[in-house]
């Protein structure tokens, strides 16, 4: 396949100040504000946030799946090329190299077409691979996601498969065009925990085999921390923290990340009360223009937080959007879990 190889060490995907506005009741409302991050080839990046934080919108912006009327500023680059200006064959190739899997596999498969048709559609229409060849590759990939009777599955309809099985079909389908980046939007949220573990294990294996990069979107901080190399935390349409996953829980940089970790009950220890975050999560268009979006709920909010929106700053190898990040560094974890 003819791929534009980026220079060694260059990021595979790069977002630079991406802002998305959507028409809501006549006026344009921001759903993403100045989102920047990068994914290196083969890297797994987690994207964590509560409802309305803009995490799914980010994936849609990357894959150019935004609803009609959306206004995008900033840049999305994939393999060094500007995604927003791609068209024709380039766009087709881009979509072959970036695959997407979704939370609800049932809604995302056409109910009147068979699994085989669904899996091989892109290969047949875009790469002109003959039907039997495409089917053979589909059966192979089904085997690698743990579905042994692929021939039979190809003849079935989506409603004949369980949710967990269908999600594995989705993963196999996503890999069929040999992508370099996988956008996974809450792919295991609707599954039982044991099925989730299974699906994630499959994904993990295949990813390292194929050195596939992944953007893993989830509301579950522990999950992102467990399976991703780095994690981006979003709040109200903004990136508030980017951190190596293994340090996310021990040394969070942003009060929101720390509070989110503290708010989850633990499976290992019984606490009588949790450290809840007061108030409710803001959506991007509710976020104040001239202040930190988290101010209203932040135990560390000070005057400086209400004066202007803080910039993303580097700290301890990560990024944080907190005006008091330096003075709070090292204190957040300890104090919130007290």
């Amino acid at each position, binding site marked *: 396949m003819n791929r534009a190889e980026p220079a060694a060490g260059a990021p595979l995907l790069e977002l630079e100040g991406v802002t998305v506005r959507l028409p809501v009741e006549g006026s344009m409302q921001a759903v993403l504000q100045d989102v920047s991050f990068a994914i290196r080839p083969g890297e797994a990046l987690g994207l964590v946030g509560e409802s309305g934080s803009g995490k799914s919108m980010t994936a849609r912006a990357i894959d150019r799946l935004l609803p009609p009327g959306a206004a995008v500023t900033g840049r999305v680059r994939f393999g060094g090329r500007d995604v927003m200006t791609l068209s024709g064959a380039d766009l087709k190739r881009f979509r072959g190299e*970036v695959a997407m899997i979704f939370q609800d596999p049932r809604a995302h498969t056409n109910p009147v077409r068979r699994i085989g048709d669904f899996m091989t*559609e892109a290969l047949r229409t875009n790469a002109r691979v003959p039907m039997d060849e495409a089917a053979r590759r589909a059966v192979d990939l089904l085997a690698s996601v743990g579905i042994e009777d692929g021939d039979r599955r190809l003849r079935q309809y989506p409603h004949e498969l369980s949710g967990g099985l269908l999600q594995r079909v989705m993963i196999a389908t996503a890999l069929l065009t040999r992508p370099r980046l996988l956008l996974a939007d809450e792919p295991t949220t609707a599954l039982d925990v044991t099925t989730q573990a299974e699906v994630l294990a499959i994904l993990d294996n295949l990813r390292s085999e194929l050195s596939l990069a992944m953007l893993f979107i989830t509301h579950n901080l522990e999950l992102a921390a467990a399976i991703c190399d780095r994690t981006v935390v979003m709040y109200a349409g903004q990136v508030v923290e980017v951190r190596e996953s293994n340090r996310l829980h021990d040394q969070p940089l942003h009060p929101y990340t720390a509070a989110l970790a503290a708010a989850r009950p633990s499976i290992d220890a019984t606490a009588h009360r949790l450290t809840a975050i007061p108030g409710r999560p803001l959506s991007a268009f509710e976020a104040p223009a001239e202040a930190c979006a988290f101010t209203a709920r932040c135990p560390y909010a000070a005057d400086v937080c209400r004066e202007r929106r803080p910039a993303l700053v580097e700290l301890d190898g990560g990024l944080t959007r907190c005006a008091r990040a330096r003075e709070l560094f090292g204190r957040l974890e300890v104090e919130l879990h007290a």
Partner: protein
Amino acid sequence: MGPAESVHLRFFVRRLAMLLVSLLVASFVIFAAIYLAPGNPIAALSGGRSLPPDSLHVLEARYHLDQPFIVQYWYWLSNAFHGNLGISITLRENVSDLIASRISTTAGLVLYSSILIIVIGVGLGILSGFKRGLLDTSTLVITAISASLPAFVAAIVLILVFAVQLQWFPSLGNGVGFIDQVRHLTLPAFALAVSSLAIVARVTRAAIREEARREHVQTAVSRGIPTAELIRRHVLRNAAIPITTISGITVASLIAVAAVVEVVFGLAGLGAYLVQSAQSKDLAVVQGISLLLVTTFVVMNVLVDVLYAVLDPRVSLGSRAQ
């Protein structure tokens, strides 16, 4: 045979059983209604004239009037099954023969209308479903009005414009020869089609919009499937299910409304004959035509169901689209 096929088969068998029960009950209602009709059946049979006693007995025996109700029903039904629907009291002819002589007009009218509904209605719906703008807006407005247009009002307007003013089409009669018959059926077919056509167009448009919004269409977009394929394989294919359904149901219901149009245009069809017989209380004819129309209606509805099951793989598992 795989499990899916056997489920399909079971669906069809069950559907067929329901069809038979419906027909049985419908025929019973048709027969019982006439049986319970006020007035003496002999009087109805004789057309109100008084008969000598032995003629009365002959009539009673011939029509099994001396038998219990349910036995009479059975005789009527089995005769009907063999194509014997009794004798018209006004025309003194076999009802079956009378029906046979008029059936082609009604069938032609309904067929012509159905073609108009499917070609224009579905076509317009698809166009306005995909293209927003002037065409879409005007389709919406025009169909909102024509969906409320009763067939007989549409008929007089069409006659006024196309027969009286423009003189493009004849306003009355059946015509002779194929071309002339088609010409004679054109205005009636449009009159019959106009409100159904509007409804089909609106449902089609809505179905296209709805299917185009589906998440699985987004999946296909994200996989780089070309737009033409996307529309054909996902939007149109899936929208075909509600479109087929509404078209089928609409076409089935034309059978009854055809009567009105036949009367306006003076067509010698079944519907006009039914109305005429109802007015003259020629009950054997009313029974016969009612039975035929109900049967056609029920069978067409079953065909819609079957077509639906064929188009939607989910239906055979009993998860009917709600």
